[in-house]
């Protein structure tokens, strides 16, 4: 793990929220952290160079007009076809997320994809088409019926 000083941590805790929408946003942030504008930009660039900061960008509300139904599809795919299948699934526009996860004695599914569709019927239909193409050993559609919690991680927010 990398080392961050208190100013980095404070900077991260601010950047994970919103940067001010004004012509010199880092001047304002610098005042809150105790750095001048140039130092803020330097630190941000360093974080970007070493990959800690993936990007500084607007994030959109994920709501595609008309896409009402969604499901987490878990797929059981032979080990030697994991990557090929994961990449293939990722190419579908309807798939927003695709991951490979550990399996266990009670759980055989290794690939996960979030699939979005206009209706429940359409979702099933699209998933069948995907299954046809990737030929999994087995799969299941796990629909979410209730959101019980949804928050984002807060980094260094206690500072």
């Amino acid at each position: 793990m990398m080392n961050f000083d208190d100013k980095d941590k404070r900077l991260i805790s601010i950047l994970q929220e919103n940067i001010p929408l004004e012509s010199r946003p880092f001047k304002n942030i610098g005042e809150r952290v105790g750095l001048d504008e140039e130092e803020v930009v330097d630190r941000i660039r360093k974080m970007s160079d070493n990959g800690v900061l993936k990007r500084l960008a607007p994030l959109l509300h994920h709501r595609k007009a008309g896409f009402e139904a969604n499901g987490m599809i878990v797929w059981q795919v032979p080990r030697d076809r994991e990557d090929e299948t994961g990449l293939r699934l990722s190419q579908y526009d309807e798939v927003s997320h695709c991951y490979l996860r550990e399996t266990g004695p009670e759980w055989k599914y290794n690939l996960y994809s979030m699939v979005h569709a206009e209706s429940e019927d359409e979702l099933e239909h699209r998933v069948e088409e995907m299954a046809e193409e990737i030929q999994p050993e087995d799969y299941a559609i796990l629909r979410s019926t209730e959101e019980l919690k949804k928050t984002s991680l807060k980094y260094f927010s206690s500072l």
Partner: protein
Amino acid sequence: MMRAEDLSEKDKELLTRAQKGLPLSTTPFEDIGEKLDMDGEEVVKRLRKLKEGKMIRRIGGVFDSKMLGWESTLLAAKVPKDKFYDVAEQINEHPGVTHNYRRDYEYNLWFTLSVGPNEDLQGEIEKLEKKTGYEFLQLPKKKKYKLGVKLDLSAEGDK
């Protein structure tokens, strides 16, 4: 509430470009505007409007949580109907639980648990198992093939 269809061509161009990352300079809005034939003021004004219209959720940093020392996993539990909300509540009390969904499956409770630097993920899982009285499926991520969608709002991305 704004929808993707309500966006002007200029807004789409701006969002498509900005989603890839703002320039890391003292004047990020002015700099991104240069390529779009807008001045910084116009960029700020448009972004403000998009944020007020709830098209944009947040304008800020996206971090690599692993590099910041955070560790997380997906967990699933099989909980009988009559205990479901009690268990969900016990789980949600944990500040490291960021997402929790009920799903129509044998494993009906699906949640993510994250812990920060110097915290022990396995230890926290065991504590939660003890607290709820249920054993969880542990499904840590091995690989990401696709993570979220950056909406391509440029003309050719419209379908």
